[in-house]
C-alpha cells in the first residue's frame, strides 16, 4: 500500500513538477535565530485562509440582496448546520487577522526589517494592512442589520468630506442617493471579489519578495545595513549559519497557526458570532451604530477631534498616516536595525499602541453619547419625596438633563458629573449655566419655565458632599424635626 502511494506521488510529482516548483522555496535558508518573533506573518496568512474558507462556506447561503440578506443571516445563524459556528469563525478570524497583521507590522518596524533591500516587502505589507481593514469594514456592512445600514451612511458622510469629489464618492458608496437596493450588492462585490483578489495578488508579491530578499535576521546592535555590502554579507551569513525553512523554521509557524485556529474555533463556539441588530430599516430611529472593535478607535477619534479642524483631519490624517507608512523605508533604509539603537522606533510603536488603546477604551465607553434611557433617580439619591428638591429631580430627568449628566452614577456621561455640583457652583452660577448653556451644553432658557429653573436649582444645590446619600436621611429627619 505504502509502495503504491509513494509510487503514485512520485509519478504525479514528476509530471506536475511539484517538488521542482516549491522545493527551493521550502528549503530556502532562513536565519538560525529567527524564532518566535517571526510567526506573525504566517499567522496573518493563516487567518486570511480561515476567512477565505469560512467566507466561501457562508456565501453558499448568504443572499446579497438588500431585502433578503438579513433573513439569510438569521437562517445561517439559527438554522443552518454549523452556520453559527462558521459566522463566529469568520468574525474571530477577521479579528485575528487584524491583530496578527498589526503584530507583524510592529515586529518588522522594531527589527528594522523594512530597510534595504526589503523596502517593497514593507510597502506591500502596508497595502495589505489597508486591505485588511477595508475587509473588516465591508464585512461588518454585510452583516446587513440596522448598525450596518447606518454605518454605510456614516461611511458615505466621511467620503463626502473629500474635497471636490466627496459627493460623487458618497453616492458611489450608497449606490445612489439613498440606501436602497444597490447598496449592499456593491459592498458584497467589494468584500467578496475585489478586495480578496487584491489581497491574493499582494500576498503573492509579498511572499515572492520574502523569497527574493530572504528573511531579515534578528537585529544586532552595531550590525548596520549598508546597501553596498548588505546582500553579500547576508548571503555569506546564510551560507554559514542559515537553516532550511522547512522544517527548521516552519515548525513554529505550524505550532502558532494551530494555536490560532484552535483559539478562533473556541471563541466561535463559546461566544459565537456578533448578535444581529434590528433589521436594516432606515425608518427605525432608535439606532446606535458602532463599528466592530478594530475600528472603534477611529469612531472615538471622530468624536474627539475639535470640530474646527475635523473636516481636514478626517481626510488628511488617514492620507498622512498612509504616506508616512509607505515612505518609512524610503526615508530610512540603512544604518542600525537594533531597537536599542533606534529608541524612537520603540517610542513610535508604544505611542501608537497607547493612542489606539486609549481611543479604543473611549470608543467602548462613548462618554460623548447621551444616555437615552436613564432610570429615574431613586428616592435615596434624591433625598426628598416632595418639595422643590423632589420637583427639581423630576425636571432633571424629564427635561433631558439626566441624559447627559451623572448623579450618583446614574445618567449620561456626556456632560460633567453633577453628583457634587452644589459644592462647586453657586446658585447664580447654576442659573446662568441652565439658562444660557455653556461649553458643549444647550441653553434651556427658552424651553424651561421659571418654576422649573427654580426647582432644578434647588435640586442641584442639594448635591453636596456633606449631604451624601447615607447622611441625607438623617439630614431630612433633622429638617423635619425642626
Amino acid at each position, binding site marked *: 500500500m505504502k509502495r503504491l502511494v509513494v509510487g503514485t506521488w512520485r509519478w504525479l510529482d514528476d509530471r506536475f513538477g511539484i517538488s521542482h516548483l516549491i522545493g527551493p522555496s521550502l528549503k530556502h535558508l532562513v536565519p538560525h535565530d529567527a524564532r518566535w518573533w517571526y510567526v506573525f506573518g504566517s499567522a496573518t496568512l493563516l487567518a486570511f485562509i480561515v476567512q477565505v474558507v469560512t467566507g466561501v462556506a457562508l456565501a453558499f447561503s448568504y443572499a446579497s440582496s438588500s431585502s*433578503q440578506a438579513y433573513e439569510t443571516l438569521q437562517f445561517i445563524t439559527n438554522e443552518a448546520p454549523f452556520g453559527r459556528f462558521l459566522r463566529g469563525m469568520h468574525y474571530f478570524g477577521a479579528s485575528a487577522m487584524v491583530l496578527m497583521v498589526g503584530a507583524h507590522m510592529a515586529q518588522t518596524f522594531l527589527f528594522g526589517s523594512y530597510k534595504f533591500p526589503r523596502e517593497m516587502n514593507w510597502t506591500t505589507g502596508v497595502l495589505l494592512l489597508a486591505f485588511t481593514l477595508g475587509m473588516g469594514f465591508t464585512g461588518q456592512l454585510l452583516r446587513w442589520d440596522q448598525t450596518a445600514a447606518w454605518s454605510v451612511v456614516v461611511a458615505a*458622510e466621511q467620503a463626502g468630506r*473629500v474635497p471636490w469629489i*466627496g459627493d460623487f464618492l458618497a*453616492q458611489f458608496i450608497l449606490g445612489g442617493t439613498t440606501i436602497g437596493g444597490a447598496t449592499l450588492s456593491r459592498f458584497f462585490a467589494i468584500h467578496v471579489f475585489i478586495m480578496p483578489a487584491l489581497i491574493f495578488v499582494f500576498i503573492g508579491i509579498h511572499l515572492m519578495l520574502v523569497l527574493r530578499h530572504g528573511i531579515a535576521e534578528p537585529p544586532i546592535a552595531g550590525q548596520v545595513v549598508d546597501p553596498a555590502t548588505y546582500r553579500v554579507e547576508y548571503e555569506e551569513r546564510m551560507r554559514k549559519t542559515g537553516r532550511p525553512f522547512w522544517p527548521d523554521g516552519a515548525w513554529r509557524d505550524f505550532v502558532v497557526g494551530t494555536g490560532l485556529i484552535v483559539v478562533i474555533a473556541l471563541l466561535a463556539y463559546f461566544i459565537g458570532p456578533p448578535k444581529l441588530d434590528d433589521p436594516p430599516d432606515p425608518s427605525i*430611529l432608535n439606532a446606535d*451604530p458602532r463599528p466592530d472593535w478594530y475600528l472603534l478607535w477611529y469612531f472615538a477619534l471622530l468624536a474627539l477631534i475639535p470640530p474646527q479642524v475635523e473636516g481636514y483631519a478626517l481626510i488628511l490624517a488617514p492620507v498622512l498616516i498612509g504616506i508616512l507608512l509607505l515612505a518609512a523605508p524610503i526615508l530610512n533604509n540603512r544604518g542600525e536595525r537594533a531597537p536599542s539603537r533606534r529608541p524612537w522606533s520603540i517610542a513610535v510603536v508604544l505611542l501608537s499602541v497607547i493612542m489606539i488603546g486609549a481611543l479604543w477604551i473611549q470608543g467602548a465607553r462613548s462618554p460623548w*453619547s447621551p444616555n*437615552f434611557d436613564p432610570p429615574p433617580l431613586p428616592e435615596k439619591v434624591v433625598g426628598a419625596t416632595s418639595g422643590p428638591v423632589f420637583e427639581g429631580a423630576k425636571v432633571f430627568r*424629564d427635561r433631558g438633563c439626566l441624559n447627559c449628566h451623572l448623579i450618583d452614577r446614574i445618567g449620561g456621561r456626556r456632560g460633567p458629573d453633577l453628583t457634587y455640583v452644589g459644592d462647586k457652583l453657586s446658585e447664580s452660577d447654576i442659573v446662568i449655566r441652565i439658562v444660557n448653556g455653556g461649553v458643549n451644553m444647550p441653553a434651556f432658557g427658552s424651553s424651561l419655565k421659571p418654576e422649573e429653573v427654580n426647582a432644578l436649582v434647588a435640586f442641584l444645590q442639594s448635591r453636596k458632599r456633606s449631604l451624601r446619600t447615607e447622611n441625607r436621611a438623617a439630614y431630612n429627619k433633622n429638617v423635619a424635626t425642626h
Partner: protein
Amino acid sequence: MNQVTIDHPSPQRPLTPEEITRRRFLEKLCIGLSGICAAILGIPLVGFVVGPIFRKTTGKWISVGNITDYEIGKTVSVTISDPSSLPWAGITAKNALWLRRVNEGEFIAFSVNCTHLGCPVRWLQDADLFMCPCHGGVYYSDGTVAAGPPPKPLIRYDVRTANGQVQIKTMAIPITTTL
C-alpha cells in the same frame, strides 16, 4: 531525444534592421491589442459600477397625512417610502423624517441624518432637543446646533400643505461636504 531547433537569432548575433522593425511592430501590436481588450472589458465595467453616481433622481412630492393628524408644537417621526427605489430594496426603501407642526399652517420637516456623520438623531420631546447617539451632536427644536460636533443645522425637507394634506418633497441623504 530529438532536439527541436528553432532559428532564433542568438543574443550573440546582432539583429538585422528588418528583424528589429518586425519585432517592434509585433510588440506594439500585442500592446495595442491588449489595450483594445482592456477597453472592451473595462469601459462597460466602469460605466456599470460608476453609473449610479450620474443617475439623476429628482425629489417627488408625497403626502404624509392630514394636517389635522399633527398637533401644534409637537415633533413626530414620519415614515416615508422612497418612490424611486429599486424593486428589490425591501425595507431599505423606507426612510424617516422628523416633522414639526409650528402653527396652524406651518410645518418644518427635518432630515433624521445628523450633519456630523449622518447617524439618526432622536427627538426628546420633554427636553425639546434632538440628540445624536453616535458622537453626541445636539440640536434645538428648530434644527440649529446646540452642542457637539455637527458643523451645521439639521437639513430641512421642502414641505407644503395642499388639500388638507401635508406633503414632503423627497430628497437624497444630505451629505456634508468640505468643498
